[in-house]
């Protein structure tokens, strides 16, 4: 089983689908040795997600790779010269009747999506698709460089928290007119909260490709022993349950794992409590508001009470082993871990874990989670927008969404794709389906990456008790207001004009 990759071990890795920020800390590999797991010498990424599913080493050679033309040794002298000359000219020497669509996709998706292309090319003679695979770690700078260098592809995969940034650059094509003409892309068939992440000032800039959110993964046996055959639905029952679990577990075991360097958990808690993180259209920080404060205190309290260990995900050598050992009974994480839990937990534990929607502080409507995932966006500089849009439509078809799910494990963005038995009958996916009906986006400002990193720092300070909640929140508010200063100035100028 060479498809291991510790990336998968990293709880936070997939955060990045939520296009996260914090990959700074979230993605650290720093675990101590993870014996028994094929640990890659891997590179932690800062803000960018790792492809959490590394290429499988025993993949059949050639699959999913583009091999339209190949250079080989033994080019004759003149041939080499011509090759040099043409590449020097940097010219698009393509036959004019064939439209070549350039598509950028990140990490594992970039590899797998190529398998979907032949069918599209058959259905659209005259259109050829060229997929460039960009590592998550370099995706952001490559996209920006391409934009300033007028070398953007036609279509790109875009983590949905990046959309505001590229909209600020005027890089993306508004999709409203395309959608209104489309028969395949129907807004109602997408998860509402996820769709929302693509809308900036009432304009749609991306079509959700796959979705991501956070739910609870838990040990059914441990919860049952504590008297909770069903997972808790409210914060108060949840807290009770965690206290009982902790009491039964003893000193070195905990009720829940909340790695201190991951941002989604504290942000989700805050949003459940009704905090918007920012106020006045993203002009100012709102971290001293009661809603954020309550959630922050609840979250920090879990650590101070000893219900959650004060560790970063880098200090946990192997999440799966620890989960199997009962070091913690609950873990908030994303869809990629369904596959990992199935693969990596020992057989004895299969059937003793489940997934559930997050509990909420005030009734079922407060059980919200993050709207994450990646979208497909069309660059406004594209010269083949119609063809590119056809490709987006094609990739949005429920059938392709399903195929993509089977290839990657990425959850489909189309509600109708979930009716397929492979998803509808999956007990672990069900929690995600329910949760996806209740997801909210983080504030759609270009600065969001920095902001969520800063939130994690505030959590760490408070958890490690370097600062009181008060002090931590005052500092957080001040720093985030500083980050938004430019935005305020810009917005003020725009209204003046």
């Amino acid at each position, binding site marked *: 089983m060479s498809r291991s*990759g510790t990336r998968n071990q990293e709880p936070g890795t997939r955060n990045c689908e939520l296009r996260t920020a914090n990959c700074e800390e979230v993605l650290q590999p720093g675990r101590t040795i993870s014996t028994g797991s094929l640990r*890659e010498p891997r590179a932690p990424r800062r803000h960018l997600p790792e492809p959490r599913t590394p290429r499988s080493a025993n993949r059949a050679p050639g699959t999913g790779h583009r091999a339209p033309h190949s*250079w*080989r040794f033994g080019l004759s002298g003149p041939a080499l010269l011509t090759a040099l000359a043409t*590449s020097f000219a940097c010219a698009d020497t393509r036959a004019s009747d064939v439209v070549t669509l350039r598509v950028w996709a990140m990490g594992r998706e970039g590899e797998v999506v190529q398998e979907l292309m032949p069918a599209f090319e058959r259905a659209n003679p005259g259109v050829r698709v060229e997929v460039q*695979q960009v590592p998550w770690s370099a995706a952001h700078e*490559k996209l920006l460089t391409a934009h300033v260098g007028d070398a953007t592809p036609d279509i790109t995969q875009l983590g949905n928290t990046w959309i505001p940034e590229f909209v600020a650059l005027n890089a993306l094509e508004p999709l409203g007119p395309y959608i209104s003409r489309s028969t395949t892309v129907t807004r109602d068939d997408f998860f509402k909260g996820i769709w929302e992440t693509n809308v900036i000032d009432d304009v749609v800039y991306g079509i959700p490709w796959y979705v991501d959110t956070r739910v609870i993964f838990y040990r059914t046996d441990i919860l049952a022993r504590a008297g909770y055959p069903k997972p808790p639905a409210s914060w108060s029952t949840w807290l009770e349950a965690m206290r009982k679990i902790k009491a039964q577990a003893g000193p070195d075991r905990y009720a829940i794992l909340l790695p201190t360097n991951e941002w989604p958990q504290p942000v989700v808690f805050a949003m459940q409590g009704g905090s918007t993180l920012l106020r006045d259209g993203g002009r100012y920080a709102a971290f001293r508001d009661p809603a954020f404060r309550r959630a922050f205190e609840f979250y920090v309290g879990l650590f101070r009470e000893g219900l959650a260990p004060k560790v970063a995900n880098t200090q946990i050598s192997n999440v799966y082993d620890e989960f199997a050992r009962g070091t913690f009974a609950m873990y908030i994480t994303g869809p990629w871990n369904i596959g990992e839990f199935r693969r990596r937990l020992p057989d004895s534990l299969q059937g003793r874990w489940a997934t559930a929607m997050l509990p909420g502080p005030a009734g079922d409507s407060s059980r919200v989670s993050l709207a994450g995932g990646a979208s497909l966006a069309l660059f406004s500089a594209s010269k083949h927008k119609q063809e590119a849009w056809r490709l987006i439509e094609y990739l949005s078809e429920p059938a392709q969404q399903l195929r993509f799910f089977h290839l990657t494990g990425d959850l489909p963005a189309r509600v109708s794709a979930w009716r397929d038995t492979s998803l509808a009958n999956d007990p672990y996916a069900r929690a995600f389906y329910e949760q996806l009906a209740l997801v909210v986006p983080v504030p759609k400002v270009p600065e969001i990456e920095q902001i969520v990193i800063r939130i994690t720092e505030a959590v760490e300070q408070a958890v490690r008790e370097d600062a009181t909640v008060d002090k931590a929140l005052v500092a957080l508010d001040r720093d985030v207001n500083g980050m938004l200063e430019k935005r305020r100035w810009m917005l003020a100028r725009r209204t003046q004009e």
Partner: protein
Amino acid sequence: MLYATLVIGALLALLPMVWMVSASLMPQGEASSYPPRIFPRAVTFEHYAALFTRLELGRFFINSSIVAVTVTFTSLFINSMAGYAFAKFHFRGRDRVFRLLSTGLVIPVQVAMLPLFLLLKELGLINTYWGVIIPGMASIFGIFLIRQYVMSLPDDMLDAARIDGAGEFRIYWSIVLPVIRPILATLAIWTFLSTWNDFMWPLIVLSEESRYTLPVALANLSGEHVQDTELMMAGSVLTILPVLIVFLFLQRSYVQGITVGSVKG
């Protein structure tokens, strides 16, 4: 004892390279076995084949060659002209210009990178070979190296040519250049190797995969193929091989350059 140390040192110096080559010849997965293998059980060239077919490494090879060769030749020409002028002409402002240039040696190139990027953006050179080539076309170090060498040439030789009525460019082209061939060779190898190996600037300037140079492409691949140890080793071998060949064949001039260029500071 002396030889034991020398040989152990040599083994340590070579071990990573040896392992790289041998892992590149192992079948998929063998490099990730325990205990680690130093030599392949059975030799396979499948990874090299894969690099050239599926992953189009040849493309990057050509890109790197274009960039390195162009930079080498243009910079040789430009630096030698300037070095010659500094060495053999007396003119107003020479020392001042020279001192100004030498301050440049203290400034890390990274300082210039951010505005340079914006400049190249204005010139429309981002994501082009020229964007990588142009900043390397003249180098202060190169000028210094040439100047030092040319200064040691006797003036009489040039004066004689002038008396014969040769033009200044003719003198440079057909008298100076042939004489300074050794230092030109040194500089050429230096420039070629450092351009070939350069990573940061091409990484910044090139956004489209089809223009990547080998190191950039390799770093890109390694982000995606972490698991494919043997494949990545084959890629590393192909990246290093050209510089190694250049070095081994021309090491005499190269090594001279280091001692000449640096001991004097």
